[in-house]
């Protein structure tokens, strides 16, 4: 069923949901917009680009307590798992797709990660499609789209003074049941908006055969060339909605075992106690980042582990562009394996 939220009604609708849910939406923070609890600041739904911090942090916080213990080093009671159900309102399709990808890592039958799963399963994703995708975006190249429904409970398309809502899940249906239904006319208009958004996005690089190219060129000098100007700051991975690597450390003063985001772009990430480092330079570390997304993810779930959100392109301090790197990879000559 398709519904309409008039823009002038939006605040009221979100407030009503807040009675039963914790509602998160992109809002203007001091320096940049972010997914914050409703009422933190002004809504930033009109920003065409993604929030700088990916909403993955609502499922896999940058730092998170796993266990608490007492001074006698005994384990204490379970850490509370966000008991209230949440709504992520205005998540872009690339970020929803990223959450669905990360489910394959965390929400598994065997060794299920309860911290991720309890938050994720208790969260509705109300997406907002992208009518004007910024030039850093390339979702259509990697199998997504500015109005893709994957991972979403509902998808909104912005019209002049309303949001047109397509609802996909029963749980989300309950949220919209009291709202006006969309008209046939509005539906036709939405189709145009969605089509035209897709048409605006030219393919950024060729994905056909790309994995093979990368696999075959594992030992190529190409990796040194493309990583030459990399500073190793790790922003491309910290802001990436599909990067999930973490470290586990004990915070002794707080008597907590915590996990923190970590990144393969740091030297210490792969440094072993013996002093051996399998990824001693930025060349190997850049290779790991790209290979993980464009080769290893495909081995695991037959999907590219990049959703084209463009954050790594937008926020790289030296202007490195993963699209240019992959175009350069495509231009490589095929090398015989193990050359």
């Amino acid at each position: 069923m398709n519904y309409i939220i008039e823009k002038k009604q939006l605040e009221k609708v979100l407030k009503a949901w807040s009675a039963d849910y914790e509602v998160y939406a992109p809002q203007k923070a001091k320096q940049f917009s972010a997914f914050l609890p409703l009422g933190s600041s002004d809504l930033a739904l009109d920003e065409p680009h993604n929030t700088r911090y990916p909403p993955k942090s609502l499922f896999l916080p940058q730092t998170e307590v796993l266990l608490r213990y007492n001074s006698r080093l005994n384990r204490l009671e379970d850490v509370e798992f966000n008991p209230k159900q949440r709504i992520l309102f205005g998540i872009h399709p690339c970020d929803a797709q990223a959450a669905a990808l990360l489910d394959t890592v965390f929400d598994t039958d065997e060794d299920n990660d309860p911290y991720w799963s309890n938050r994720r399963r208790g969260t509705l994703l109300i997406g907002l499609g992208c009518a004007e995708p910024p030039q850093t975006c390339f979702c259509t190249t990697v199998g997504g789209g500015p109005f893709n429904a994957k991972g979403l409970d509902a998808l909104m398309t912005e019209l002049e003074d309303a949001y047109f809502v397509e609802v996909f899940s029963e749980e989300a249906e309950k949220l919209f049941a009291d709202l006006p239904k969309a008209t046939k006319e509005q539906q036709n208009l939405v189709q145009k908006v969605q089509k035209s958004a897709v048409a605006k996005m030219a393919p950024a690089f060729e994905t056909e055969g790309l994995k093979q190219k990368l696999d075959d060129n594992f030992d190529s000098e190409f990796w040194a060339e493309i990583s030459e100007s990399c500073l190793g700051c790790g922003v491309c991975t910290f802001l990436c909605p599909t990067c999930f690597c973490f470290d586990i450390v004990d915070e002794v003063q707080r008597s907590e075992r915590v996990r923190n985001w970590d990144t393969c772009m740091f030297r210490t990430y792969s440094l072993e106690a013996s002093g051996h480092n399998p990824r001693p330079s930025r060349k190997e570390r850049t290779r790991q980042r790209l290979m993980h997304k464009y080769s290893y993810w495909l081995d695991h779930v037959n999907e590219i582990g990049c959703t084209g959100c463009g954050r790594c392109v937008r926020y790289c301090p030296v202007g490195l562009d993963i699209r240019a790197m992959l175009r350069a990879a495509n231009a490589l000559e095929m090398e015989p394996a193990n050359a």
Partner: protein
Amino acid sequence: MPEHHHHHNPYDPIPMHILRAYYESTDRSLKTFELSFDKQADSEAFFKAYNPGQFCQLSIFGKGEAPFGIASAAWEGEFVRFTVQKVGSFTEYIHTLKAGDAIGMRGPLGNGFPLEDWKGKKLVIIGGGCAFSTLYALTKHVQHPQNRPDYDQLVVIYGARSSGLCMYKHDIQSWYQNVDFEIHQAIDVPEEGWLHHVGYVPDVVREVAPSPDNAVAIVCGPPIMTKYTLPVLEELDFAPETIFTSLEKRMKCGIGKCGRCNIGSKYICKDGPVFSLAELQELPDDI
């Protein structure tokens, strides 16, 4: 309404206590700990899942966690054995623990040895240094009268830098009485009174020259030993599918989530730590 799933938490260490702790080497760099379970249910769950070749995270609140290979076979009793080499602050702390002290453990983790596939075959077990611990567990497992008929001949080649660093001494000494398997021990340099081989493990393997017929070889040791032993096995005509080794990486979660031990499409902690040489040859050179 929200469905809250209270699954077993894989980050939660199993409460254990130390049953026995004793030095394994004369220089006191190696210490063996045998841990027992505080709760019977944990013990049952552990032994239901345990397969030799697996590892555990030993866990101490305020100090952290580190992975160690399991050095005991299930039939030895309701305890789990680890031999810990003192190399850093964490292992130094573990060395201070004594019988009765509490410790956390997560596991068993990883795949372990493919024992089903090895049934009916000759096992050539090659170990060096403290990495021999999981091979000790394997040998103990196979030795049990109930398991022994499942395997053909057993050849154990075990090297240490010196006689003082040889682990599980008394038990291994008794293996020489066994008619149904060969044991070859080696130390790097000659010592007075040493009656066995002298030399590096790859050279001892060449000297012993086990036949590859209906055999698998399992190699665990420091990277340099493994690196030079694999070509010797290939010289002896062991096919890559019949050579197995165990990889050690900086594993944190141990369950394929934290990403740290990723090599190519594998997570060493979850897909390994045991791999055949054929599998390793498929992986990128990122080890």
